[in-house]
């Protein structure tokens, strides 16, 4: 799943370790999410959205949005 986590993180000048600290996850978790190797669960996605003050769909894009809207 594509996401803009890295952009949001660098905008705030946080390292992966700092973001991991704020979310109480490992730095590897942040790296895996940023690189799209791992899709977070709904609770973690909500925690990320809350931290950045955005909606989940503003941060994560599963590429299905357009298809579903036209169905």
């Amino acid at each position, binding site marked *: 799943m594509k996401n803009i986590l890295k952009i949001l993180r660098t905008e705030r000048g946080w390292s992966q370790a700092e973001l*991991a600290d704020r*979310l109480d*996850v*490992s730095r*590897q978790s942040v790296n895996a999410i940023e690189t799209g*190797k791992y899709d*977070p669960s709904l609770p*973690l996605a909500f925690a990320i959205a809350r931290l950045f003050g955005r909606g989940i769909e503003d941060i994560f894009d599963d590429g299905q949005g357009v298809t579903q809207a036209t169905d």
Partner: protein
Amino acid sequence: MATLGFRTANKRYKRLFWPMMAIYVAMIFAAKWLVDEDTTPLWIRAVCAVATTAPVIGSIWAILRQTSETDEYTRARQMRALAEAGAIVACATFLVGFLQIFGVLGAVDVFWFGPAYFLAFGLSRCRTSLGPTV
């Protein structure tokens, strides 16, 4: 068991794992000093074996507890490493077993399958850290 987050789970893991390892090392030396196969009574030898195994059980409990309490990604990687280690040791057990049955290999101490599991677990953890993840 509830998820506590990466930091708390790690703290709780270290608080249990390292004392268990220290007790394990101490028990090995104590048992080595206490046990003489020819003269030590059987019950003392049995107590030494159980007492040396107890901290190993404690450290395995620490690993399993950390796995269930840590963050979801770390848990998934840990579960994968535990499963891979189990699969590797199961394969090794069959191989060694058949090599023994067909007379290729002599007696191998069952003890070594325990350390082999931890070695396989460690290698699997390293692999998931370096390569493709969950």
